């Protein structure tokens, strides 16, 4: 059971959170994005074996969505930030 650092509430047990997925994905501008860009946004995800930035919601806590950087192979926690924040040493974001 992971120990996740919520930037608002501090260290909390994984059971208080809900996982969503890749947080490097950004919703393209619906007015200008091509269909290929749009479908990329909906369906395609990188799958790195190593550090990964992901969305978790502190659903049993402050209800805030947070970004968590975690090594998906070793589960080592490498940092967290709030919904609009940045984690230090962020990996390169996927193109929109």
């Amino acid at each position: 059971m992971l120990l996740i650092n919520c930037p608002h509430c501090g260290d909390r047990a994984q059971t208080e959170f809900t996982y969503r997925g890749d947080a490097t994905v950004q919703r393209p501008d619906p007015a200008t994005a091509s269909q290929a860009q749009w479908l990329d946004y909906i369906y395609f995800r990188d799958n790195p074996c190593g550090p990964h930035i992901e969305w978790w919601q502190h659903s049993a806590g402050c209800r805030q969505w947070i970004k968590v950087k975690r090594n998906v192979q070793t589960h080592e926690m490498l940092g967290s930030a709030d919904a609009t924040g940045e984690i230090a040493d962020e990996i390169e974001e996927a193109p929109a």
Partner: protein
Amino acid sequence: MADIQRKSIQRRGALKQAAGQYPSISVNGLSITEYRPEIIVQINGATEPSALQLALSLTGFDTGQFAAGRFNAGRAYRCEDATVLWNGPGMWMLVCEISSQDSEVSGVVDELNAVLQDTDATVTDLSHSRTILAMQGENLLDFLYTGCPIDLDNCPPDSCFSTQFGHFNIILHLKDSQHANMYVYRSFGQALWDHCQHIVVTLPPNAARLQ
């Protein structure tokens, strides 16, 4: 919302109770009773201390005491008849008892909205949305640790956590290591009560700390 005389209408909470009796548990040194404040209001978007101060000016809080920046995450603040609990960034839950002098409670939400209209904060009435259990005992932490995964040792007084107690999502107001209020969604109220009764008998007798 029309003005109403709340005293003439009856509030019926989530816990089963025999007529005229309050449900209560007192086993192995831990006692649990229901706490029934009149008002619970959620204030959202109060990211500036001034918004919260404006809201609290309607209550018994001496807001002069709270200098800007004194409202800390993870804490609860109390005055004689009100408590304000931190729930998240800019999110505060105001819990008030109405003194018996007040025969009329009208439009609390509207008053708060009026006071906050120049800010980004909003107010939602949650007065009926929670069942609250008041707990006390020397073995309170042992009891809480049967379901709460947070480190509750050495907490500052009036710490406040939105967390879990077993499968229940709760707000835990830990006043000190022997007194706490546990807030749960009203629909879970009876289930939480039954759960507490189920757990409390497995605590060591004589209110002793484990080992």
